[in-house]
């Protein structure tokens, strides 16, 4: 058993602030990808899909996040709060997935995102928070598990 501490709660709240708004926006997107609201939330106010590849990628990320990332986040976070060690394993898995898609977005969308939203938005809620949260949970969970295992 690993009792949750202040860092656990900070990471949990940070994770909720980072992931849940994205998943809410992706739910709107999946309901109607061509709606003004979906496009405003996902690509920015008044903007349009660049092409079908752009729209398809956004939809694919939305499905993957809703089917895999959301359940993983809910199960891992509740398990971590209950004190069970395998919750940290799930947190690490989620962290690795977050870092993985952060790298993908860095290469794919950095230029366009920075151009339209600026560096501050990009390095925080548009992209950065996902990377920081991913790295944060990997390090923290690994340390928690290390205390138990080694």
């Amino acid at each position, binding site marked *: 058993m690993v009792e949750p501490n202040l860092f656990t709660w900070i990471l949990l709240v940070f994770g909720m602030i980072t992931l849940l708004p994205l998943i809410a926006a992706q739910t709107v997107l999946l309901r109607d990808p061509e709606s003004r609201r979906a496009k405003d939330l996902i690509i920015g106010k008044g903007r349009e899909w660049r*092409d079908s*590849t752009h729209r398809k990628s956004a939809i694919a990320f939305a499905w993957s996040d809703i*089917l895999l990332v959301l359940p993983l986040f809910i199960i891992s976070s509740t398990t971590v709060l209950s004190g069970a060690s395998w919750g940290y394993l799930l947190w*690490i898995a989620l962290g*690795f997935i977050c870092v*993985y898609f952060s790298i993908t977005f860095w290469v*794919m*969308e950095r230029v366009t995102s920075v151009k339209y939203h600026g560096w501050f938005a990009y390095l925080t809620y548009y992209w950065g928070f996902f990377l920081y949260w991913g790295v944060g949970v990997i390090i923290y969970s*690994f340390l928690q598990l290390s205390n138990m295992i*080694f």
Partner: protein
Amino acid sequence: MFGTPANEMIKNRNQNQKIKVSLGIAFTALSLISLGWIMQAYSIFDWESAFELGLQQGTFEGSELESLIARKEKGEAMADLIWPLPLTILAFVGLVGRKFYGWLSAMMVFSICIYFPLFYLFQQLGSDIQVALFAIVMWAIPSMIAIVALWSIRNHYFQYG
């Protein structure tokens, strides 16, 4: 009383058998995954040749749309080489050396390899789904089986530290 050591031996043999089978599954899945990283590495090295071989779907020498697809795929290829490739190497080395970090790295590689075929499947829905199905069969399904297999022998790695 006399049966106890024999039972213990049978138990140990079964345990060793279980470890062997689970590791076999994990190494098979990691080998299949490695083929993907080799494919991505080759693509970064020579994109147009990889396109001609059918390893990638977009080309930088085609239409604007093809070029956009190529840019997206290059992003995925770069991400694969920066993040899961070193992790796969770590998984191979760590699992062979019976280290906890190997077990953990393998689990993380497998979780990524469930995520990206899922992404690919939804991206390709309604168009060319064959590549996505290939990714599901080659990487996602073996990864799911390998996660179960490694989870079943977790104590073996936790005790070795």
